[in-house]
């Protein structure tokens, strides 16, 4: 049990790190993009650049929340 807990703890630390908001800021635009792809927009040449802009906007939101919570470390 201790090993399994340690195993998941290691991978959580490694992938999510000390700021889960970054992981969420990546996943939200990609889940929305997946929705578009599953609904027949996979051939749209506009979808990739729109998703890139959405990823950037999502990162700005995550960073803003972090700066508000921790003005300086």
């Amino acid at each position, binding site marked *: 049990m201790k090993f399994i807990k340690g195993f998941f703890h290691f991978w959580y630390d*490694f*992938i*999510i*790190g000390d*700021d889960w908001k*970054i*992981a969420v*800021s*990546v*996943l939200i635009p*990609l889940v929305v*993009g*997946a929705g578009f*792809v*599953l609904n027949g927009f*996979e*051939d749209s*040449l506009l*979808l*990739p*650049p729109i*998703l*890139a802009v959405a*990823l*950037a906007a999502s*990162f*700005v939101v*995550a*960073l803003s929340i*972090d*700066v508000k919570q921790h*003005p*300086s*470390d």
Partner: protein
Amino acid sequence: MGSSTDWGLAISVFVAAIVEMVEALTIVLAMGMTRSWKSTLYGVGTALVALTGFTAVTGYALANWLPRSSLQLVIGVLLLIFGLQWLKKAILRSAGRKAMHDEARIYQNKVNAAAAAGDKVRFGLDWFSFVVSFKGTFLEGVEVVFIVITFGLNANNMPVAIMGAVAAVVVVLLAAIVIHAPLTKVPENTLKFGVGLLLTTFGTFWAVEGLGALTPSHTSLEWVMSDLVLLPILAGWVLLSAILVKILKVPADQVPVIEIIQPVSVREEA
């Protein structure tokens, strides 16, 4: 190796591996110089064996079990998360909102922690220095392995990616042997900014392409301009980072510094 893509691949992996190696080296030096070189080197050796196994299994699984688009999605998401975490820290450091990564201070904190730790001995080894050096080497090493595997597989040139990482290991080890102290002169924050931008750019490109894994044909999504779109994506992240640094900038006298943590005995005397 001759094309500009090969050089770009090798340089990307080399720079990323340098950053990770410098961090691992700081931990190893602190343990070796204050506790036990024998136990520290056993920790490093065990971590290298574990890393070799991890690399073989992960590399084989990624290359053989996943279709190309799924591979792009998985590694694109990972690169985006790693890249944006590095970018966030680099932006906050450049804006003066986070203490600069200072190897000398981190080294001192590790030394103080080593001095305060107990003298537990297991299997004839100083357990504290063994565990700390194992964890430090393995964690930093796994990041390098991920970068090598993802860049190597996607550029279809694993040997060049491995050469980039090996060159970084050799350079950092040689520098450590010559200087015999933490590598404080490496412009780590600047390198991290660059690597963060690079990982984020490739992560954006591959994660979006990889969404094609959800289609019945599992064909990757198409970007306008194909691979050349990497340049405008990189330019976009550079521009956004510069704007964020400017907006978040704080006066120089309010910039935080990494606090040196004193061991209990020193704190009591002070």
